């Protein structure tokens, strides 16, 4: 037993606590250190098929593997901006006489796909216009189930028809041309739109429109092939688990529920580190990388944490380069004055605030006979909602209170704008009286006004959040009954309009354009097809929206956006809640370059100092010498006691 304990103590002391895998190399070909970033991800991707994946986890990985035609500028976030990636320049927009539009795009020459066994000799061939056409056709293939199809088929000529034809035939015919995608020459193609849709450029910055080599889709079929040594049959993964693109990294390992490993694509030269658009507070730091080839880091290891509790432990040990500060770790990381705790400060850790491109609001049903017909009542409710206290209590004061529908960073967002019906209880009471309910009593019937609020308050904290909103409304003297639904029930009520007040609704940007937010209140977007949960119907709003939606970002457009904002503020079909925001802590060796929230990590632009990391990791993970001795002493004591006891035994 003693021997066993000593052996285990020795073993324990020798095994180390680093959970990351050994990097693929120690040094680069030129002798400089091989640089690795260690990141965390809360879940597995749903698929790595660029034409299918639409979840955050998949995007995080695809962003590294697939280049897009255009991409979000990593540093320009106020407002967000797209820049050419695979394209030589921004697409040329031309308006046709019949109301249709054409976008002419020119592909960069000499961009190779990653080396992969699907290509002859395993060497990645040059990406061509045909690969882009193939990807666009895949969007219309019913087997691919592209989620972007429903939005794009209204605009791209022939996309919907191609889908319907394939559905009817049971197979997509890739030999037929796609009406909306015209190949001009080996470098140029045109996109034909049925009507004006300037937002198409944002779709070109998503992986749905990224080029796909047809041979990769054919090669990775999920079946067995004689690929092993001596012609041994080996199962190939499906394409959706083995993406092949022109991106900065290629995926060398993906173990579901465990980890992902990406390694630099040595042939990558689609873009370089931008030399403009630096935010002033980071400009000095960023300037050193200007014009450098990317990716800056050779390898990225991503650990999948379905359970978030260990993340702060690994961060503290220095085995993660950064982490989002969740509610569990908040008190241990950030003080009440929104500063880092002294321990993290002493370690040189940086605290950064990330603002999501989203807005949360409470929806009021405009078809409800009480709420829908009484504007002053809705305004009174809006005045009774104390957004700042809500954010302070439930979001540690990190998230900003929403004053308008659009979050910061989108064209038309005005940081100085104040919601005219923001929190003001006295004003709310006055408005309520004008609405016909002085002190919450219906002046016609003499009865207290009673409203029902639906909420997905299934957890204790969510319940507290709902109670906060309920109490706010009740301060007006009215009575608010809360109905707790699960997520699916809440969506069903939203679909059929069976609610008065709906708590916890919101919208995250698909792309940073006012159209993507104001369409939520367009009368053509009633549920279940659309997301106008409030069922707001205002012909004037619709008219201005239609005009604004197809315009470029000009002062005239800004005027229209402000008009829409004013109409919503006055009509109050919703009560603005907050824009989601959270803190991120970053290790001293891994200062972030890009914090663009529309990019999923912008990994190719991120940097790391491996020498500093190695030094600090060693310092932070010193193993004390005493535990094996204590263990050995306890075991020896127990054995000694047994011997002594046996000698003095009566029986």
């Amino acid at each position, binding site marked *: 037993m003693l021997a066993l304990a000593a052996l285990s103590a020795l073993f324990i002391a020798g095994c180390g606590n680093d959970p990351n895998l050994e990097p693929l190399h120690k040094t680069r070909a030129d002798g400089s250190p091989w640089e690795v970033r260690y990141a965390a991800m809360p879940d597995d991707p749903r698929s790595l098929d660029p034409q299918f994946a639409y979840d955050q986890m998949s995007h995080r990985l695809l962003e590294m593997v697939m280049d897009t035609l255009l991409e979000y500028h990593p540093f320009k976030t106020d407002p967000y901006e797209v820049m050419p990636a695979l394209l030589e320049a921004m697409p040329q927009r031309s308006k046709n006489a019949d109301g249709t539009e054409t976008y002419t795009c020119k592909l960069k020459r000499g961009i190779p796909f990653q080396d992969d066994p699907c290509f002859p000799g395993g060497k990645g061939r040059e990406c061509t216009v045909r690969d882009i056409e193939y990807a666009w056709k895949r969007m219309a293939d019913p087997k691919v189930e592209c989620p972007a199809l*429903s939005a794009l088929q209204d605009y791209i000529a022939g996309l919907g028809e191609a889908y319907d034809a394939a559905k009817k035939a049971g197979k997509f015919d890739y030999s037929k041309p796609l009406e909306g995608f015209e190949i001009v020459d080996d470098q140029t193609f045109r996109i034909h739109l049925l009507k004006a849709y300037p937002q198409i450029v944002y779709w070109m910055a998503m992986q749905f429109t990224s080029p796909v080599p047809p041979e990769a889709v054919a090669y990775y079929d999920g079946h067995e092939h004689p690929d092993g040594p001596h012609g041994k049959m080996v199962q190939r993964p499906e394409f959706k688990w083995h993406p092949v693109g022109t991106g900065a990294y290629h995926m060398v390992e993906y173990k579901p529920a*465990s980890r992902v490993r990406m390694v630099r694509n040595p042939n990558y030269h689609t873009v370089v580190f931008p030399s403009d658009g630096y935010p002033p507070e980071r400009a000095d730091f960023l300037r050193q990388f200007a014009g450098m080839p990317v990716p800056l880091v050779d390898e990225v290891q991503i650990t999948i944490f379905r359970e978030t509790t260990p993340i702060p432990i690994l961060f503290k040990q220095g085995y993660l380069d950064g982490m989002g500060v969740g509610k569990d770790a908040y008190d241990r990381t950030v003080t009440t004055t929104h500063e880092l705790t002294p321990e993290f400060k002493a370690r040189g850790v940086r605290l950064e605030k990330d603002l999501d491109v989203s807005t949360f609001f409470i929806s009021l049903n405009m078809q409800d006979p009480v709420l829908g017909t009484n504007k002053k009542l809705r305004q009174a409710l809006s005045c009774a909602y104390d957004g700042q206290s809500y954010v302070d209590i439930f979001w540690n004061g990190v998230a900003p209170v929403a004053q308008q529908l659009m979050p910061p960073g989108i064209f038309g967002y005005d940081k100085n704008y104040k919601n005219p019906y923001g929190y003001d209880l006295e004003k709310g009471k006055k408005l309520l009286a004008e609405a016909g309910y002085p002190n919450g009593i219906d002046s016609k019937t003499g009865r207290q006004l009673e409203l029902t609020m639906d909420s997905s308050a299934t957890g204790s904290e969510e319940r507290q959040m709902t109670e906060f909103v309920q109490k706010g409304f009740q301060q007006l003297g009215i009575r608010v009954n809360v109905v707790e639904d699960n997520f699916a029930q809440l969506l069903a009520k939203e679909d059929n309009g069976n609610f008065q007040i709906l708590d916890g609704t919101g919208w995250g940007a698909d792309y940073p354009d006012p159209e993507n937010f104001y369409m939520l209140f367009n009368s053509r977007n009633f549920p279940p097809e659309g997301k106008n949960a409030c069922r707001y119907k205002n012909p004037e709003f619709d008219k201005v929206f239609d005009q604004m939606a197809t315009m470029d970002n000009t002062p005239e457009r800004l005027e229209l956006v402000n008009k829409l904002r004013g109409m919503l503020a006055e009509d109050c079909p919703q009560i603005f809640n907050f824009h989601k925001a959270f803190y991120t802590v970053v290790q001293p060796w891994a200062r972030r370059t890009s914090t663009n929230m529309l990019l999923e990590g912008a990994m190719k632009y991120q940097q790391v100092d491996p020498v500093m990391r190695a030094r600090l990791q060693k310092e932070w993970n010193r193993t004390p010498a005493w535990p094996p001795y204590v263990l050995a002493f306890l075991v020896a004591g127990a054995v000694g006691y047994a011997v002594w006891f*046996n000698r003095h035994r009566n029986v």
Partner: protein
Amino acid sequence: MFSYIIRRLLYAIPILFGVMLITFLLFFIVQPPEFRARAILGEKARPKQVQDWLHDHGYDKPTYINGRLGVAIDKRATPGKPFYDSLFVNQMKRLATFDFGLSDKTGLPIAQTFLDGVGPSLCLTLPAFVVGFFMAVALSLYQVFVRYSALDRFGIFLCVACMSLPPMIYMFVGQSFLALQLPYFPAYGFDLHGWSTVKFLLLPVSLMVIMNLGYDVRLYRTIFLEEITQDYVRTALAKGVPQSRLLFVHVLKNGMISLITLVVAHLPLLIMGSLLMENFFGIPGLGNALFHAIQLGDAAMVNAFVYLGAILYIVGLILTDICYAFADPRIRLS
């Protein structure tokens, strides 16, 4: 013996049918697939996407039979299709033929998830089971050796303390003390490559052993103490057999009969892994997959796992009965 096993296997059929029925009620009646589709596809999903999802997963069929059930006709009934083309019949058929289909959430074949998860799960549960068993036997024998002494009483106190602590406490303390304060073990992760696997498993296996040790030592001690009061032990003592030989040869051998029959029931369930431990330490086993499926509302996955768990439990019970017969010839299986 053979006819006994056949009889026990036949008894298992109604039990399994009951399990299938309950899981169907839970996953298809209490929470209809439409709700699940909305929750899985997210709030931005359009009705067509929801419909396509239901169709792809075979959830757009009538609930019980394709046609008239009593007076009501299921609105999803398809004329021209046989009456048994329904959700209920298809689900029963799928489970009975072990054709679990695709996961609701990931779209991956459930059978593949199961095969991928068995290895990591057994890497955790098998060593924990074997080491835990031998440690519990050793410690309980030690306690019997020093029986009724102060150390024995202290041991009982420790066992009760171990039994009283919830599993989460072990995991929190293990991670924050053994992995962070005394940085001996990785706090999280898994890698199925030789020694690297051992490095990742040391902490969760140790915690699993300690977690079950209190209960096991207490139980085994009782079994050995009962054995030590037998007549043959008294005779051996009277004949001058030393305490150590008495304990490690005679008592251990006879006590093991009871122990083996007790633990053999757990053997098949080791395949299913550990729900909490795997999730907490990032071991991509079956426990982790099930935990995640429950969190995400992946009914197809949970359904398959519950069914397989029930089968393994029944196998465990049958194994126990067979072990009894082998270990003690006095027991006859009639």
